């Protein structure tokens, strides 16, 4: 029913992935071009830093193999010079499970990260706006998003923090709650320390930067949006800081126990959280014994991150079971949907035949009927089509199910219907179905008294 063609962090390095990355502004044209191909009925593209994947559905009458080939060709067109080694193509149930797994963040670089669901939703929305989403992808994406929410609410696959900056920010919130109105002190440079500081500042904390080199401190303060202070002010600044992030290259402790004890007295016992990201360590571990003082070093953070990841992987099995169940439900729906083109064509054929007869009668002996009577006849026509086709529709859908053992089989039934009603041959051939000769008994032949009764119902 659907196919997925693309590459991800699992199959291709970033150097290859970036060659295939599709800017947002080019997405609509790319998708319109793709559905312009005879095999592809619907398409969307998920393009993130970790994956570029086309999700496509076949046009009626086209098989998934040809759709996958068309998508591969379109995908290669994104970057003709890039190697195609890491490009994969999945079809049918495998593609559905993959899509559901991607939306549920089981296929993410960081297992359980929440951003991917938003990215999948955005990809769907862009395709919908471009007009390249039909019933199949609509259903597939709706179920994928639903599955991702189930996974998130019923498993702990997204629990805990899995990066040092987010663990640090989480700990700060566990100690201080809302960080607005609190002060963060950043000592030393370093990408991780700066990220932590930015994260805390984004939560409303005031940022102070302390260092030995005035120029470097000033530049760093400007970069992270903080206030610069010299290292000689450390004692005073320490008294005002609630969170202290230290990442200097000093060979010994920069923050001694006595300094912390003094700051603690001056702060009248208010809590302090020390984040020591330096190796060798900047903060004397003896401060941990002080009441209201919390110290985490790089090993502590690494251990917490590892534990969170391990916990997520344990939960991934439960998440996969949910995905399998939901994918099976989609498969059943998709199997049933195979019968839809035949059912639609059959309904059109029957309705068309009845319509011809009705129009003929309404233009002849029934021309005197007023609006309500004509509307009643229209309703009767629709009801007749529904009643006539209810059983064939049910049986066709049941036969379309992969698990069905009915005879005749689904292909046999569709072939028979195609042949009997000339479903694939247009209106010209359908005229052969027009009645003629003595069997023809149009409504005009009904006695006028009966028609009058019909109109009065």
């Amino acid at each position: 029913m659907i196919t997925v063609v693309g590459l991800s962090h699992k199959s291709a390095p970033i150097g290859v992935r970036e060659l295939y990355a599709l800017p947002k502004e080019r997405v609509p044209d790319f998708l319109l071009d793709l559905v312009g191909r005879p095999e592809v009925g619907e398409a969307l593209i998920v393009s993130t830093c970790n994956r570029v994947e086309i999700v496509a559905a076949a046009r009626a009458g086209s098989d998934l193999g040809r759709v996958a080939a068309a998508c591969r060709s379109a995908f290669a067109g994104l970057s003709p010079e890039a190697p195609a080694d890491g490009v994969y193509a999945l079809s049918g149930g495998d593609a559905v499970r993959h899509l559901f797994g991607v939306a549920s963040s089981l296929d993410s670089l960081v297992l359980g990260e929440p951003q991917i669901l938003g990215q999948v939703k955005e990809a769907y929305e862009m395709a919908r706006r471009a007009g390249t989403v039909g019933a199949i992808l609509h259903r597939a994406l709706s179920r994928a998003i639903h599955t991702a929410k189930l996974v998130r609410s019923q498993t702990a696959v997204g629990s805990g923090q899995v990066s040092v900056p987010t663990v640090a920010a989480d700990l700060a919130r566990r100690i201080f709650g809302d960080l607005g109105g609190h002060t963060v002190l950043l000592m030393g440079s370093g990408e991780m320390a700066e990220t932590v500081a930015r994260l805390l500042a984004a939560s409303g904390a005031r940022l102070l930067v302390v260092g030995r080199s005035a120029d470097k401190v000033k530049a760093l303060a400007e970069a992270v949006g903080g206030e610069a202070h010299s290292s000689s002010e450390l004692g005073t600044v320490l008294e005002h800081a609630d969170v202290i992030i230290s990442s200097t290259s000093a060979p010994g402790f920069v923050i001694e126990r006595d300094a912390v004890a003094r700051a603690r007295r001056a702060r009248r016992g208010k809590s302090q959280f020390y984040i020591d990201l330096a190796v060798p360590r900047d903060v004397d571990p003896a401060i941990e014994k002080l009441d209201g003082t919390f110290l985490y070093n790089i090993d502590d953070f690494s251990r917490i991150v590892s534990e969170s990841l391990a916990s997520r992987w344990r939960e991934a099995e439960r998440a996969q079971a949910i995905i399998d169940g939901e994918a099976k439900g989609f498969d059943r729906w998709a199997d049933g949907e195979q019968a839809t083109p035949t059912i639609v064509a059959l309904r059109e054929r029957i309705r068309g035949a009845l319509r011809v007869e009705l129009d003929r009668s309404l233009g002849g002996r029934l021309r005197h009927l007023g609006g309500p009577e004509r509307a009643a006849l229209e309703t009767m026509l629709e009801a007749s089509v529904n009643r006539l086709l209810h059983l064939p529709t049910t049986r066709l859908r049941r036969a379309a199910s992969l698990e069905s053992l009915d005879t005749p089989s689904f292909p046999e039934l569709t072939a028979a219907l195609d042949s009997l009603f000339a479903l694939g041959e247009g209106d010209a051939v359908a005229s052969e179905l027009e009645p003629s000769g003595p069997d023809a008994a149009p409504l005009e032949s009904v006695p006028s008294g009966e028609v009058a009764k019909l109109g009065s119902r």
Partner: protein
Amino acid sequence: MATLATIAFYLGVIAYSAASTLFFLDLVRRDGASTRATWAPRLLGLAAAFHAVKVAVGLSREAPMESLHLALSFSALCAAGVYLLVHRRANLFATGAIVAPVALTFLVASQFVGAEARVEDGISRPLLAFHIAANVLGVGLFVVAGASGILYLFQERRLRAKQLGTSSNRLPSLDTLDRATHRLLVIGFPLLTFGVVTGAVFSGHWEAMEGAALARSLFGYATWVVLAAVLVARRVAGVRGRRAAYGTLAGVLCVLLVVLVYALKPGGHGS
């Protein structure tokens, strides 16, 4: 009326039990949004409403100062009421995991341990009513303060041990718990002081103090001394956090001992 009180009692027990269960499940849940967080306080509110009906029926028949079980029941109702009033504003949702079972315990205890108290002649009835009301409300406030203190120590221990279970992020932050404990003590302390002072006034009418009454008085004074020390230490020396939480719990323990002595050896004022 007795039937109404009985029905309200059983419905209150059911609602408190359900609220306690939901609070606990929410504390230990692993991840994801939960409707428990919405329903637990609602169920506690429902339980408090049934509880209030039972208390109202009791008040229509007897004065609280003459009935231990009514006073006990009233204290539990106050604790639930204080929680419902402050939990949203003070971000103390998780404290309900302690307040709800305590209220349930007090409600059940009030049904089975009560005994009529005697009021000696010569004791001012209005003053006695204020004395009981202050103590009852104070117990309610201190129960919530004690709950906050317990959660503070639990959260602080986990942070020090660097064991970040997935359940602990359901708890309020340390600062929030510390601040809430302090504020509840500040509000409850004048009531406690009033209760202790009026209790001392009543003791003047006591001709002979029995062992249980003496124990009650001593635990009452101990509560005042401990909680006063906690408040003064915070004000003067900035003692807060873990040590303040331990101090608060010691004070609350004294309060509970007063209640326990009352439960084990009932006796009225002036006896």
